[in-house]
């Protein structure tokens, strides 16, 4: 679906502040895949995702959307922006319209959709993000923090992107707000078959929702694969200051204590099952 090959990007080229934000980075996501992207601040995550919808142009390497180079001559960049929906960190700060409905309609209108089609998109996006229809006429500035965040996400979902990219969509929310947002994103993927790229610092979130994980460190991916493939390389993760989810750490310790438990469980539910399996056998 979306494939980035050998991307290199340098900030502040030819200045004393020159830094390589990406250094030969590969990344890909296929339709219906839920890809987690993890790494420290400054590892290149934000730079990478801004390449995915063409906001940044790589100094070398290319990005293929459904097999076509998005920077090739004659390609429509705005089309790329609509196909690859990017939700920035703290997206609620980009809201600007008088009403929630109008704000969500910004994307569809920019796509040149008809009034009726736009309304339909807005309604659908609000449903996906769990916003009651009665909110459409309210000012986005009167909403709670969590609701604003969902309006902003709806504004991107309304473009029905084939790839939905989110940069830490749960940052700063309380536990119930965090859970809610992740559930809505899962729903969007399940119902539309879109690919999702989730940037997060939380291994627990990754374990809950992602199919694959890419670990970035110092401007390039150092691990990539399924949850099992990545979480079984704990020494690589701890080497860059990350770790497997907390429940997995408990299971590993249980193994060290001599309990023959399967440490390949990353969510609470799986961990409970793994421990119970020891007893049940």
């Amino acid at each position, binding site marked *: 679906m979306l494939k980035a090959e050998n991307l290199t990007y340098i900030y502040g080229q030819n200045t004393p502040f020159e830094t390589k934000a990406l250094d030969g980075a590969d990344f890909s996501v296929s339709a219906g895949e839920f890809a987690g992207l993890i790494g420290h601040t400054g590892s290149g995550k934000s730079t990478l995702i801004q390449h995915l919808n063409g906001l940044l142009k790589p100094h070398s390497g290319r990005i293929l959307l459904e097999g076509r180079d998005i920077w090739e001559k004659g390609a429509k960049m705005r089309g790329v922006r609509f196909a690859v929906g990017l939700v920035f960190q703290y997206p609620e700060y980009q809201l600007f319209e008088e009403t929630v409905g109008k704000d969500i309609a910004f994307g569809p209108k920019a796509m040149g959709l008809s009034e009726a089609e736009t309304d339909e998109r807005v309604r659908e996006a609000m449903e996906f993000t769990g916003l009651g229809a009665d909110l459409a006429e309210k000012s986005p500035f009167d909403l*709670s*923090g969590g609701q604003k965040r969902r309006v902003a996400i709806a504004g991107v979902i309304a473009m029905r992107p084939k790839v939905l990219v989110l940069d830490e969509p749960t*940052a700063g929310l309380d536990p*119930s707000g965090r859970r809610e947002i992740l559930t809505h994103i899962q729903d969007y993927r399940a119902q539309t078959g879109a690919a999702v790229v989730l940037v997060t*610092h939380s291994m627990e979130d990754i374990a809950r929702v992602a199919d694959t994980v890419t670990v970035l460190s110092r401007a390039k991916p150092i691990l990539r694969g399924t949850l099992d493939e990545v979480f079984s390389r704990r020494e690589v993760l701890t080497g860059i200051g990350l770790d497997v989810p*907390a429940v997995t750490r408990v299971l590993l310790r*249980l193994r060290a204590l001599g309990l023959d438990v399967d440490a390949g469980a990353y969510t609470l539910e799986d961990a409970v099952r793994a*421990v119970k399996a020891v007893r049940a056998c």
Partner: protein
Amino acid sequence: MDEIIRFEHVSYSYPTEVAAADKDGAASGSSEDRSVTPAPALNGVSLAVRRGETVALLGHNGSGKSTLVKMLNGMLTPDTGTVTVCGMDTGGDPLKIRQQVGLVFQNPDNQIVATVVDEDVAFALENLGVPPAEIRERVDAALRDVGMSEYKSHAPHRLSGGQKQRVAIAGVLAMNPTVLALDEPTAMLDPKGRVEVMETVRRLNAEKGVTVVMVTHHMNEAALFDRVVVMDKGAVALDGSPREVFRRAEELQALGLTVPQTVALAQALGLDAAPLTEEECADAIYHAYKGEPHC
């Protein structure tokens, strides 16, 4: 008992127009109509904090945590009831009370005033009219206490989130406060920044005996405090040691909160325990299971 903070039957409602705009007050999930009937932000809160105690304040958005924190240094004063800090009513001389209670907020960018780190840390002391030589000394000491000495002539906007927040802490620490109150200081930080702030706060408590009240949404941070107070609808819902509070996972869930993963795992396995670390959790499970016959 050496009491530093005392809330007695404190109630407070925001003026109506503010209530609608107040971020924390209006942030609860689906109560869209709360601006129509403003519920009190605090409703008969009584609470006492001892000198040197560390208290984590939990609660979903809109539970009254932030209001409570702003009561600590007299930024807000109760409609009814009294708040006493270090023996002073918070309605008294604001400068005296604010020196006793240093307040740090969520967004580090919006509380740093100056363009150079040490000048920012000096801000409070300059306001208080402290002689320049003494300011210099106290600024250097505060920066040392938060581990930011080497950044003293840096521009704040070039620092990481965790570093900025430590500068903000140094900025109130320079006043030599008895209480350090922090309103979600880690919410906007990455994991590394969160650890930096937590370590700084705990060290200040251990080494300098500063009393700490901190709002957080991260349960694993709350587990590191002496005491956890859970707020709901403007009142104290649960209050006790992390172990006591996290044992009541169902009640917490009903209040829109979670428990640390280790507690959740132990409880899902039917253990009557609230292990706060992974080692504790593994040990508890191991001991519960090793007695059982293996196949």
